[in-house]
Structures are given as C-alpha cells and as structure tokens.
C-alpha cells in the first residue's frame, strides 16, 4: 500500500489540475465556443461544486470501505474547490463587471443567485484559512471540526446558486442537489457500517502533528 501512495497522490493532483489545464488549452486553441468567457465562468463554477461533492464523499467512503486513507486527500480537494470558486468569482468581477464596484454591489443585492453565491464564497474563506496544521492546533480538534461543518452549508448554497442561475433547465443543478443529499444522508449513523477505529479523527490528528517544513530539518 505504501508504495502506492505517491501514485495515488499524483492522480489526485492531476485530477485537480485537469480542469484548469483543459480550460487553458481550450482558450489557447479557441475550442471553447463562441463565448469562451462565459464558458470558462460556467465551467469553473461547476468544477467548484464537483470538488465540493468529492470532498464530501470522502467521509462516507471511509465509512463504507472501512479504509481511513480517503481522508488523506480531503484538505487538498477542499482547497481545490476553493481555488475554482476563486477563479469563478474573479471571472465575474473582472470579465463580466470589469471591477465596476457600484454595479457589482447592486447586482449582488438584487439577484438572489449572486447573493447566495457570494455568501457561499465568503463562508469558504475561513475554512481555507484554517486548513493548515497550525490552525488545527490553534483551534483544537473539536472547535476546528465544528467550524468546518460549514462545508455542508456551503455546498447547499452552491447548489442553490446554480439552481437560481439557470434560465430554465433545472436538470443539471438538480443532479448536483441529489448527489449532495445522498452524501449528507450517508453521514447519518449507519447501523451496518464497518467500525472505523474511533470517532476521534485520526487523520486530523495526523495533520495537526505535522510540523511546518522549515522546522523539520
């Protein structure tokens, strides 16, 4: 198993970078259709939701498989979601509104899909900031975990943002919503689940015990 880690890690990194590479390639080769800016904006939004859902799938996967290894990628995938959300927001601020802040303010207050979208992003900020080992130590596992439960709300707001943003074809946002609901239901106590070693999260302890790289030598 240990020998596999580097390969699995590389695979996860590739998965995180792939959408960005694809969109950059598409932009360079002019393969994103007649309205590439809108295409990239929509795609980064969808990839934010996908990475959020994948992140939320790790705990149920751990329960179903009894293997703790999944959690190894949780932080990385959560930060990937944050990265694509940042791109998504930046594209709106820059290429849609050209940093016209008064218009942006009006737009966000007036259109509920923008209001919930921005709210979801604002809630992601503290989670991204406290994703480091130092912050886990500083907050303590219990408080840190409580804070990071915000991810459920963030994912729900993200789906709502998508739902309200589409003109009329509600099928794609519905699909994301269904997956989210399933992932949340799988979190309920499950009588047949294989016992994971304990309720106190080992992976979290492992992350918290990491030393900053500069002190490692």
């Amino acid at each position: 198993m240990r020998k596999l880690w580097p390969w699995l890690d590389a695979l996860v990194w590739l998965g995180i970078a792939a959408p960005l590479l694809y969109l950059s390639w598409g932009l360079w080769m002019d393969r994103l259709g007649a309205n590439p800016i809108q295409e990239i904006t929509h795609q980064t939004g969808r990839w934010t939701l996908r990475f959020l859902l994948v992140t939320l799938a790790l705990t149920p996967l751990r329960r179903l498989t009894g293997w703790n290894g999944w959690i190894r990628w949780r932080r990385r995938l959560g930060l990937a979601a944050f990265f694509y959300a940042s791109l998504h927001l930046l594209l709106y601020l820059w290429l849609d509104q050209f940093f016209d802040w008064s218009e942006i303010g009006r737009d966000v207050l007036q259109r509920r899909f923008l209001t919930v979208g921005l709210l979801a992003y604002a809630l992601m900020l503290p989670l991204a900031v406290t994703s480091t080992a130092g912050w886990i130590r500083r907050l303590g596992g219990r408080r840190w975990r409580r804070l990071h439960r915000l991810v459920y709300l963030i994912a729900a707001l993200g789906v709502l943002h998508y739902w309200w943003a589409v003109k009329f074809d509600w099928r794609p946002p519905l699909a994301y919503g269904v997956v989210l609901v399933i992932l949340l239901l799988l979190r309920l106590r499950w009588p047949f689940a294989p016992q994971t070693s304990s309720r106190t999260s080992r992976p979290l302890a492992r992350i918290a015990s990491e030393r900053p790289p500069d002190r490692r030598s």
Partner: protein
Amino acid sequence: QARRKANPGPYDTDEPWTSYEDITTYNNFYEFGTGKRDPSRNAHRLRTRPWTIRVEGLCHRPGTYELEDFIKPYTLEERVYRFRCVEGWSMVIPWLGFPLAEVIRRAEPTSQAKFVEFTTLYDPEQMPGQKVPILDWPYVEGLRLDEAMHPLTILAVGLYGKMLPNQNGAPIRLVVPWKYGFKSIKSIVRIRFVEKQPITTWMKAAPHEYGFYSNVNPNVDHPRWSQKTERRIGEFRKRKTLLFNGYADQVAHLYEGMDLRKYF
C-alpha cells in the same frame, strides 16, 4: 477580417458581421437541447422539406402553403441586423428574408385582428428536446399587429447569402431586431391572426421574467441578468446595450405613452 456590407440599406447596420461559424454553433434552440452547441449537433434531424405553413385566424385569405409557394411571391433581400439575446450576448447577422408585412397584407387580416401568433413545429422525433418538459411545447410567440407590420420585422430563410441552417431556425423564422432573441421564433409552421394578446411560451414558463413585449431595454432589468451591457460575440470588453437594440429611431413610436417597465 470580419465582413461588412458594402452598401448598407436604410435598415442595415454597417457593423462587422459575426462569423458564420459563431452564428451557426452558438444557438439557443431548446428543441434540440439546452446547451449552446446542442442545436448545431442535433438539428440535422429536422426535415425541412416538405414543409407546410398555415396562415389562419382572423383574416380574409387564410391558406395552407408548401414552403416554396409561400415564399415565391416575395423578393429576398439581405438585412444586416444586430441580434441581442436576453442572456447578455449579441451578434451582427446578415439575414436573407422578406418583410412580414407583405405576408400580412396578402392574408388581409380582419379589423378584429390585433395580434399575430406564431408556432414552431411540434415533432419530438425530429426535435428531441421536445421530449423534455422544460417548456410547454410547441414554442409559441406573438407580436402586436403594428409590430408585425413594421418594415424591420422580417421572415428569414437564409443568412450569409445561404439557406438558413437548421440550428438557426430553418426553413423559415421570424426576425425582430429590436426585441430579445427569443421573440424571433424559429421553424414556423403556423401564423395566426388573433384578437387577444397571445400567451407566449416564455411568459407561460416564467411570467415575472418574460413579458409579451420583451423589447431590448437597458433600463429594465431582468431578474437574472442586468440588461445594461452585453458582450458582442468575438469581443472582449462588454458594450453598453442600446434602447430597442439601437433601433429606437425606427420603433420607439410604437410604444409611445406606454410604461415600458410595466409592459416589459
């Protein structure tokens, strides 16, 4: 280098044309799927010959025509129009068509007729998008009679000097350049004169978002999109949206005394 019209007529814009590629691969035509590329991929299923058009309702000379017979009396002309989608993008399209007014005069609407209603083909086998109940099929649009008679309003059968591609509404579609694109109904099989304002497909789907008039208007926000600006396909910066899509001089008189916020 984008093409322009050498000798623009009174109804033409002299702006550079959007590329044929973009016009024919970036479409909203939900009958063939809701993605922008779906229509260009799926519209080959549509058989545009034979094609029958019915002219009916409150008129003295109703009739059922084969497409060729329907078009025959009219002279085709090129009209280069701005095209503004409600989603905030726009194009410049060289249509080939003829004024709807000529069709209306030939049908001789009665004095009761106040509106014209248009209907798209309904055939889920050819139009697979109609198997999905996202809209109340078939697609229906409408114009007030004076809007329909306006010289800018045309029925188009081609673009870029060629036959209309299926994804652009073959074999015959409406083009009303001062209204949002969805008013310009595609693949028409019925033109009907009515007394009451028709309930259009988008009004039925979302009455708060889509009104009957749907005139391009930067001062009336759509709940989903600000309509102040638009991105011309092929351009990077967004540009300001013009009242009546820049056709105010020609059409503003049609709406004199009307509250455009109420009649959006």
